[in-house]
């Protein structure tokens, strides 16, 4: 008898473990440190939260643009083979809309965020905060959104009101087409 109890006790120490209920704490993963989060938390929402210290002017941005952006987007932001950045104002309701930073993008913070995370194309995340503020200012200036003497930083960038800020509809209004499942002698597509 003593022997049996002893082996049961031993089994419970080194044995097959317990079957868990669903939704228990699995105890997997570890807490992320502040340092780890800071290294990866690169996004910039419209509130501007997360924008780094630093600043950049339109004239400094022109230099950054000419060194890093011109080959893909053209000298004027309109003529490269990659996305058009400049112009298109007033075209969104036309038969040939031109979607650019100036005509379409609702938030200036998105420009900082995107340039930092993905530009320049062949060397993403290589620009300094000063360079990103500067080139953001320059592209906004090419679109007539900020004056030539503008310098942008974490405080001023989120305050810029983009021309198409209010151009977006939410929530999704679909289903927006009410089709009928006619089976015989139906009206066709056109």
């Amino acid at each position: 008898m003593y022997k049996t109890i002893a082996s049961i006790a031993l089994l419970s120490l080194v044995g097959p473990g317990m079957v868990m209920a669903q939704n228990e704490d699995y105890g997997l993963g570890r807490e992320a440190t502040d340092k780890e989060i800071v290294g990866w938390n690169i996004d910039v929402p419209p509130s501007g939260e997360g924008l780094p210290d630093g600043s950049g002017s339109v004239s400094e941005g022109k230099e950054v643009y000419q060194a890093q952006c011109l080959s893909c987007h053209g000298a004027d932001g309109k003529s490269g083979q990659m996305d058009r950045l400049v112009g298109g104002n007033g075209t969104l309701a036309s038969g040939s809309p031109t979607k650019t930073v100036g005509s379409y993008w609702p938030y200036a913070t998105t420009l900082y965020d995107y340039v930092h995370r993905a530009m320049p194309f062949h060397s993403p995340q290589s620009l300094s905060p000063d360079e990103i503020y500067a080139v953001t200012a320059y592209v906004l200036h090419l679109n007539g959104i900020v004056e030539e003497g503008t310098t942008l930083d974490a405080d001023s960038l989120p305050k810029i009101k983009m021309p198409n800020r209010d151009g977006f509809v939410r929530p999704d209004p679909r289903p927006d087409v009410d089709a009928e499942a006619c089976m015989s002698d139906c009206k066709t597509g056109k």
Partner: protein
Amino acid sequence: MANNNHTDGQIERRQFLKRTLGAVGVASLPLPISQALAASNGGGNLAPNVPEWTLTQGEPILSPPYGQPSRFEDGVVRTPTDLTPTKTSSWSFTPLQDLNGTITPNGLVFERHHGGVPDIDPEQHQLMLHGMVEKPMIFDMAEIKRFPQVSMKRFLECSGNTLTEWKQPTGKTVQDTHGLLSCCEWTGVRLSTLLRAAGVRDKAKWILAEGADAAAMTRSIPMEKALDDALVVYAQNGEALRPEQGYPLRLILPGFEGNTQIKWLRRLEVSDAPYMTREETSKYTDLMPDGSARQFTFVMEAKSVITFPSGGHTLPEKGFYEIRGLAWSGRGKITQVDVSTDGGRNWTQAKLEGPVEPKALTAFRLPWRWKGGHALLQSRAIDETGYVQPTLQALIDVRGLNSVYHLNAIQTWEVSSDGGISNVHV
């Protein structure tokens, strides 16, 4: 014992034949065995001749260790778009017209990359979950694989699928017109399980998902979806994710547009508002005729397409054909698919291959006897919400011609009297 004798006898006979024919081939004929056979018997590998591959041993196991399709299927491949200036920020199409059933083989799942395919060492890949949570977390791949596992067969469709077809028919094949569509069994952990581990705060409404690729691709995902059926997956169709599908980790949001299902997933940030990333403002938004744009149009609505016979096929003769196709809906299960052979005037209900799963490709089939004349083949899907797949004109009437994405209209294939099939608008 009798069987053994029979088997031995076969082997001996084959070896004899091989030796004899081999000796003949080498000694007196410059032709390979098959051609020598064809020359002597007049029919090559066709009946009544015994084919050459029956007369000799085939390749051994592990030829190769990871199996490949037959060399005679080497035309079944993804094809590139010609619409992008780079090959890294670009896309490729699934050859739907060459596939059967509803599962897309991993090597043929369509691609859409914004900064190329990264080569990620899974031992150095982490998932960070932070923001409006009680405890920000980091998981490594081994830990993610220890969580309770789920598998779901779900379709994946780019919101740009069929985008070239708004104004006029452009694609020749169903691969061109509908090839930004695939369906896999995805395996991983529910996103809600990971969120529970971190403890989401009450005011949290959105999650930013971010990839580890050169685009650091980001999309804001509604919390409602994250807690519903979202998955963080590491496998597709039984094996590890392919690199071009996000290896070692990606997000799967069943029924949502493809670009939200972030590949090479490295970070999830919980917040009370969307982040208004470049993708969800300047790109994946739908411009309406009045100049306004719909935003966060996540759901891929009910859609279907006939894959056989379809554009580029030729019917060799009159007679029986089975019309086959695929239907799917981001809102749930397909309940009915109708097929028309006269351009939408009359419809017949097709047979659905069961069991029909929600937000998965569903195969439909309808027997058809082609009498040799002109025909206009169409399919129309209906889902469990009662939504009926619309005509192209009905979509254009509401959305105009500049919304680019979410074209889920009825597709028409024109069969000409010589059996050739082409893409048309009716």
